[in-house]
Structure formats: C-alpha cells, structure tokens
C-alpha cells in the first residue's frame, strides 16, 4: 500500500528519576500519550503544573483513526498551542450531504453563522495532531513525555499515588498527587484497578479504507444510505489532508474482518463507488466494531479517567476524541486550584458530575445515530426509509434524518458550580454553556482573550460612550483585588484612554457581535470559568453576588 506519511520513531531516553533511591514525586502523571493524554499534559503545563506523560509505545497513531475535529476541540487546542497547525494542515468543511439510494436527499451547513474564529469542523489524520502535540511538548518546560514506559502497578496511598513503570532498562517507581488515566478504550489501568466500563456492543462491522486520489470532489461530508454501489449498507466519504480520502463501508455483523480488509476485496468496493476510471491508491484499511459504554464514575480518589478510558461512543458524530478534549479542558484548571490550595478537594468531584453528564449526552446521541444508520428491526428500517424518502422534497423530514449528530460541546446545565439566572436573557449563553466566540479589538477573538487559564468577567457598562462610572470602577477593581482565584475583567467599549487598574482591560466590540451574542444590555456581567464555560450572569453589577458565584464555581460553597 502507498504511504503518504511516515510514522516518526521517538527515542527512549533514560530518566534521572530511574536512578533515585526513593520514588521521585510529580504533581501530575498522565498515563497514555494519545491525543487526550497529551492534551492533559499540555493543559497541566499551561496551568503551571509540572507533569510527566508515560506511554508504552514510541510513535504516533498507526493509521489515520480519528479524523474529524470539531470547533470546540480546536478552541481547546488553541489554548494548548496546537490549534493553528491543525487548521493550517487540516481540511476545513462546513457542508454535509446525505444521499439515499440514487438521490441526494439534502445538504446541511454546520456553521451557518459568520464571525467565529474556528470552523465547524476540520478533517485531519490523527497522526498529524499527535505529532504537533509531541512537538509542543518538546518545547514545554516542566513537561516530559517518556516513551517505552509502561505502568505495571498503581497503588493509591493516603496522600499520593505510587506507580511502577517498566522500561527497556528496568523498572522504577514514581509518586504523584494525581494520576490522569488516558490509556484508551482498553485501559490497562482500569482493569488493574478492577473497574469496568459497561454498556452496549453493536453487532455490526465497518470497513475503513483510506485512499489517495487526485479528484475534484469538494471538501464535504457525504453520507449514503443504501447506495447503488453498496446496497443494503451505508457509506461515508470524508476528505483528509494530503489528498487522502476516508471511506467507511458498513459491512454487517457476518463479515469476516480479516478477509474484508484485504486489498483484493477492498478495491472492487472502491471501484464500484468511485468508478472504474478513477485512479486511486489504497493507503490504510481497518475493520472495526464499536461499543457505547462508560465507567460508572470518572474519578476514583486520586485517579481521573479521561477520554476513551472513561467513555466510548460509536464513531458517528465524531464524539470520541472531541469529547475527550473536553474532559481534560474540564479537569486541569480544577487540579491547579486544588494543588495551589485555592479550592477544596471536593471541587474535583465536579469533574465527575459534569463529564459523566456530558458522556451520557454523547452516548445518547451516538446510540441514536447508530440505530438510524443500522436499524435493529424491520419496522425501524421502514421508518428510516420513510424518513429518507420524504426528506428529499419535504423539509420537515430532514430534521429526522440522523447520519450522526455531529459533536457539539456539552452544556453543564445542572452543574453544582453554576449560579442560576435571576433575570431573563436572550440567546444561548446560559450558565454551564461554553462561551461563544466573537471578533473583538483589532483582529482578536473573544475566545483567545479568555484563553488565559483564569476566571474572566465580561462587563457591559451602563454608559455606552466609552466612560465608566466611579462606582462601577470601584466595584470592578475591588473584585479583581479581593478575588481568591486569578480573575480578569474585560469592559466592553471602555475607551483606551481610561486608566484602568491591573486586571481590568477594555475590549472593543466594533461589530457589536459580543453584545448581540451575550444579550449585553447595559449593566450585564458574565462570569467565565478558566475552561470558558459560563458560571453565572447578572443584569447588574453586584460585587457580593459575583464573589459568591466565584466561591460556588470553585467548590468553596
């Protein structure tokens, strides 16, 4: 098979920790250097927590694997310093097309709104993402990635976790305050700890074929139900970087995975789909089954399970890797506050509460997509076909077609860290929601401004002519001074000539997008957590209320 990509081989390096007579201590150790483990390590580094990542292998992903990265994942990767390379190399797409048999049923646009920094989705082979993350880790201080280092024992002690690490030149022990487990769907640590991930195994098999071809197909997601070239099954087509195309065929449960992935069996399927005259070369094939399952809890004392180790979904909707990034986005700022003694240890329970609820939402969505794509009964198939037949001409049915509900960030609606609204607001920015984006200042983006790993305030002042009243200024500066956790406040439209105290910054909203998306009438104040989710909002500036909300958002009340 053709290779557009050569996997790097990273060198095993002997660590000084191995020569220490007693186990060396690190605040955070991450097990697993997949995208989510590396995101955990980079996030720790960004927050100022020294960390070590251990991986039993010495290269990046074999094969393209997870290829669809959603807007929210890109925003998180921006904060970790890898977003721009992803977008530069990746294929940006917003349009999806759904076909049934011979016909185009409908077209959807995932990002119908302008004025966002990042697109709805990009496609990129997982190995590129991992390489960018490795490069970033190598530039980082106080963050180390140790290859060929397998964790073979985990022991939780009262005030730390002790682990045993097996390497090419012997075993050694390490201790940490917190162990982040990111060792994937078949998590060895999970098994070692006697923990389970339970749910549903789907009786179906899918064939992935990565194909290299020069073609003028547009960069869109094309999904076929029961196409003439693959009758009875579904097929998905996606463009990746380097002219690589991901084609995914539903095979059914009885298919023989070893036979199906042989080139002599894959190529006829591709020729039927692409036409005899299309020139292509096969790059990678794989046959997979999937499960929808999760662990009962993601926090076990000083152990935190993230990504596929904690929860696994079907690939429809790209909710695997995308939700994994939201796990570490949620966890690391909390660990930082607890390690610094600025928040009680129980703040860490909110990781479990928020991310278990998010996993359930992802599981529900991906299970429903799976049921639509592979109906489990004759009647379910009849309704599926009826929906598709209607959708071509009757718009109402398009909302029922489910070829994957594409990953959207979870809203922590019922989080214990939220402060409930006292007033009414228009728009979607309710407490628990990740902040939307907007163009601000000269060429900045709102989400970049609040990617500072601190709590942030957004204030729409009473006067809209650039002034700020004395009472407002006193309240804001007292808030910033007295805050027990790092807090910055941005004042919309404040004239740059104003002398603002440290921690208070003007933000220009010349297009009025911030005001529109946050329903920013004069006097409105929003409080954002370091992961950019909204903790609280008010229609007036009230220092005590904001301080109480800050306490709640950090688990202190």
């Amino acid at each position, binding site marked *: 098979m053709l290779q557009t990509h050569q996997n790097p081989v990273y060198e095993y390096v002997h660590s000084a920790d191995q020569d220490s007579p007693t186990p060396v201590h690190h605040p955070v150790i991450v097990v697993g250097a997949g995208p989510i483990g590396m995101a955990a390590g980079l996030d720790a580094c960004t927050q100022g927590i020294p960390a070590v990542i251990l991986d039993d292998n010495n290269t990046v992903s074999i094969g393209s694997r997870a290829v669809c990265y959603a807007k929210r994942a890109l925003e998180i990767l921006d904060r970790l310093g890898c977003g721009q390379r992803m977008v530069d190399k990746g294929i940006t797409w917003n349009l999806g097309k759904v076909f049934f048999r011979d016909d185009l049923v409908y077209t959807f646009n995932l990002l119908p709104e302008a004025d966002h920094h990042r697109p709805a989705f990009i496609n990129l082979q997982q190995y590129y993402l991992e390489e960018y993350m490795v490069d970033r880790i190598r530039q980082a201080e106080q963050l180390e990635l140790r290859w060929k280092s397998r964790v073979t024992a985990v022991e939780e002690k009262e005030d730390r976790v002790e682990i045993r690490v097996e390497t090419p030149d012997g075993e050694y022990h390490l201790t940490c305050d917190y162990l982040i487990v990111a060792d994937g769907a078949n998590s060895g640590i999970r098994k070692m700890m006697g923990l389970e991930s339970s749910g549903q195994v789907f009786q179906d098999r899918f064939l992935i074929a990565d194909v290299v071809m020069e073609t003028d197909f547009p960069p869109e997601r094309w999904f076929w139900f029961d196409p003439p070239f693959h009758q009875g099954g579904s097929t998905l087509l996606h463009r990746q970087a380097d002219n690589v195309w991901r084609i995914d065929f539903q095979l059914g449960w009885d298919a023989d995975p070893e036979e199906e992935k042989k080139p002599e069996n894959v190529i006829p399927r591709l020729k039927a789909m692409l036409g005899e005259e299309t020139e292509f070369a096969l790059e990678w094939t794989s046959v997979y089954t999937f499960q929808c399952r999760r662990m009962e809890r993601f926090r076990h004392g000083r152990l935190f399970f993230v990504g596929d180790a904690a929860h696994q979904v079907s690939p429809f909707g790209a909710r695997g890797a995308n939700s994994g990034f939201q796990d570490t986005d949620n966890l690391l700022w909390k660990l930082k506050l607890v390690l610094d003694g600025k928040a009680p240890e129980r703040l860490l329970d909110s990781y479990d509460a928020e991310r278990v609820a998010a996993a359930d939402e992802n599981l529900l969505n991906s299970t429903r997509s799976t049921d639509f794509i592979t109906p489990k009964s004759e*009647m379910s198939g*009849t*309704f599926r*076909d*009826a*929906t598709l*037949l*209607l959708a071509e001409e*009757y718009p*109402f*049915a398009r909302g*029922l077609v489910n070829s994957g509900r594409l990953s959207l960030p979870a809203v922590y609606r019922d989080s214990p860290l939220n402060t409930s609204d006292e007033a009414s607001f228009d728009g979607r920015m309710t407490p628990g929601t990740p902040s939307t984006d907007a163009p601000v200042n000269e060429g900045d983006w709102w989400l970049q401004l609040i990617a500072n790993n601190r709590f942030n305030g957004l204030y729409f002042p009473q006067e809209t002519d650039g002034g700020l009243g004395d009472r407002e200024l006193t309240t804001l500066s007292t808030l910033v001074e007295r805050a027990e956790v790092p807090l910055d406040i941005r004042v919309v439209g404040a004239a740059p000539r104003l002398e603002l105290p440290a921690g208070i910054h003007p933000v220009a909203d010349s297009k009025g997008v911030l005001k529109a998306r946050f329903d920013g009438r004069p006097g409105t104040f929003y409080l954002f957590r370091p992961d950019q989710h909204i903790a609280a909002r008010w229609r007036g500036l009230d220092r005590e209320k904001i301080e109480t909300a800050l306490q709640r958002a950090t688990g202190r009340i």
Partner: protein
Amino acid sequence: MIETRKLNVQPTLSRPDDFYNALVEMHRELSEEQSRLANAKLILLLANQIGDEETLEEALKIAAEGLNKPTVF
C-alpha cells in the same frame, strides 16, 4: 383506558366515513411492504403537523395500549 391531557380523543372529523375510506383506498394497490412504508410516511407527516411532543407521547401510549407489552416509552 389512558387519560389524556393534550390529545383530543373526541370526534373531530366532519366526514369520518370519507377519511376511513381514503385511508383504506390508499393501500389498495400497494404491496405489504409498500403499505408499511406508506403508513410510516403518514405517521411522520401527521406527527409533524401535530408538532407537540406531549400530545404525540399520549398518542404513542394509546396506540400500544394492551398490545402485549408494557406501555413504557
């Protein structure tokens, strides 16, 4: 019998025989499979017209009432 809050179970059609006849007539020239498909399309069209989840849930419960399975949705 299931009590309903939103679903109207009192007669509303002015010419019930005409509708019933049209319903049966729709299936006359159809195969079993085509009929199943036509019924499914009809349900989807009407559900969209009703446009209220609570009303539809009540209808779903009544439709499955007593049919060899617990009426839990």
